[in-house]
């Protein structure tokens, strides 16, 4: 029998709701995810140390981006304060491990919980505020939190910041890039599993209803205040975890690492990846994290012709970053996730695409 290798599923054969809610629809899907899982785990064996470091950063950003996507993509609440929430996570773990000598394994969840509480607090105005007004309220959170961090010298070390150490189990320390990569990738996988499952629950569906039309959702019996604040709490928890992981990875926290530009970067990850798509958040995080790396190599090529390009590099990076956001918004509002789906759908029915 002639069979197209790319064909997996040529139609919707689901006959019950239970079928429709399944995480893995077909056997080949399980094989595919296992395959991807194995690739992720063995990656440090065949890429250089430098790339393992970059991939770690991608994984950490992806955790934060998924967190933000739960809030912005699923629940439709805009937040320009992610940078500060990352900072809350990072500083919580820095204070707990460095000042109080707690273990990383205790401070990591605590960082998430503290950030969740702060996020929930700043989420309270979301009941009365929408769209632009909410965006500005979260911006206020960003400014106020970074101000507190940089002025509360006795606890946070002020503008000088704090120094952290890498986590360890017994005598084994996560000093090498590869070990930290495994740590981040495992937390990323847990985050993905949680958020995929979140969408299949009552809470997740309530989030989607709030996003699509919050007043209509309220009429259907969804407690708006509860679910909006819950979205802020869940989202901030993951952002806090990402912040803590990042802090232990770079081994330093300081207020300017969490400024408004970081917030914009995370928003860009979510938007370029695709709003309301977990795959999109990961792709967006990879795209935004690797964009400067790609630009560096382009600049390296161009310096032969324009020797003063290195001085302009940060400005150039900013320019391209803005340009990428605008181009994506105009030409592919669905983001990278949408592009990926288009490619998949092309091959699904190939060669008879009609």
């Amino acid at each position, binding site marked *: 029998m002639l069979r197209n290798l790319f064909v997996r599923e040529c139609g919707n054969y689901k006959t019950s709701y239970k079928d429709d809610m399944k995480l893995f629809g077909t056997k080949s899907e399980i094989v595919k995810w296992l395959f991807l899982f194995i690739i992720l785990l063995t990656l440090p064996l065949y890429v250089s140390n430098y790339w393992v470091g970059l991939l770690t950063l991608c994984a950490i950003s992806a955790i934060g981006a998924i967190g933000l996507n739960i809030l*912005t993509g699923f629940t439709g609440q*805009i937040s320009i304060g992610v940078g500060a929430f990352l900072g809350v996570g990072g500083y919580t773990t820095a204070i707990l491990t460095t000042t109080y000598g707690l273990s990383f394994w205790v401070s990591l969840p605590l960082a998430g919980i503290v950030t969740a509480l702060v996020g929930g607090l700043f989420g309270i*105005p979301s009941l*009365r*505020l929408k*769209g*632009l*007004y909410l*965006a*500005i*309220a979260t*911006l*206020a*959170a960003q*400014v*106020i939190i970074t*101000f507190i961090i*940089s*002025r509360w*010298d006795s606890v946070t070390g002020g503008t000088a910041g704090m120094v952290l150490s890498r986590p360890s189990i017994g005598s084994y320390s996560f000093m090498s890039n590869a070990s930290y990569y495994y740590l981040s990738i495992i937390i990323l996988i847990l985050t993905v599993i949680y958020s995929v499952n979140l969408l299949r629950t009552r809470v997740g569906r309530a989030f989607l209803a709030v996003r699509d*039309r919050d*007043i*209509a959702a309220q*009429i259907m019996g969804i407690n708006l205040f509860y679910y909006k604040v819950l979205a802020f709490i869940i989202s901030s928890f993951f952002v806090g975890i990402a912040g803590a992981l990042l802090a232990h990875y770079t081994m330093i926290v300081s207020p300017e690492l969490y400024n*408004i530009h970081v917030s*914009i970067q995370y*928003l*860009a990850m979510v*938007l370029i990846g695709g*709003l309301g798509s977990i795959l999109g958040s990961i792709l967006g995080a990879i795209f935004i994290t690797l964009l400067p790396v790609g630009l560096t190599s382009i600049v390296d090529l161009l310096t032969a012709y324009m020797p003063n390009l290195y001085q*302009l590099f*940060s*400005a*150039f*990076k*900013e*320019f*391209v*970053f*803005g*340009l*990428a*956001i*605008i181009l994506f*918004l*105009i030409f592919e*509002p669905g983001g990278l996730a949408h592009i990926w789906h288009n490619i998949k759908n092309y091959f699904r029915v190939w060669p008879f695409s009609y």
Partner: protein
Amino acid sequence: MFFLQMLINGIVVGSIYGLVALGFVLIYRASGALNLANGEFVLFGPYVCLVIMTALNVPFLVAFIGTLLFSAFLGLVVERLVIRQLQNAPTISVIMATLGLSSLLAGAVHIIWGHTTRTFPPVFPQTPLNIGGIIITPVYLWSFIIVMILLVIFSIFFKYSKIGLAMRAVADDRQAALSMGMSVKFVLAMTWMIASMVAAIGGILLGNINGVSPTMSAIGLTVLPVVILGGLDSVMGAIIGGFLIGIIQNLAGGYLDPLVGGGLKDVVPFIVVLLILMLKPHGLFGSRGIERV
């Protein structure tokens, strides 16, 4: 006396805030978009003005008019290339587009003009005025006067001129305006051009006060509390909000800064914003609107 000095400073800075906030309000009213790239529009004005003044060696007024023309063009280009494409996109896309735009424009300014602070050649007289013991620099006084004149012009423009009325109509109900035969496209382009010019004027005044440097674009964020305080869709609110924020900022900076170690000036407006949003979500003068499912 210290209090009065702070008050006067606040009023003067507030008048510039009001002017820049006016740009926000214009765009929000006409297109329902929040222009987070406003700070970068502010940034372009003084740089272009400086370049025209120094390169062509022309008097300030000529350079000023040239800058206005350039800003109008910039506003038009932005509207045509970016904002119009996103006409039916959700709020977050438009916010993100303006954020992207701010990054792009800031990058462009850095690439073209670098990071150094430049001083504006003195346009206004330099000797400070002493009115009953309160010292006012002429630049401040002139800024205040210019802003006041502009505000009067804009009030008249919106009330009596045909384009001003069309802008209000489009802001109020786009479809109704369309069916009355107004060119919404033209009105939107006009709005962005005017908002960009207003931002440039604010930038030139600021450049005269503090010198021209890329950090000036921070005013784009500082002014957000102003528009929230006054209400996003109220011209009157933008002006009064500007004064209020300017005064609160200066008083807080003067009295509380020594207690916390400085930097309060940038934060206090945002604390005010949080309070206002909790108490009066649509600002002091914003319109409420009814929501239907």
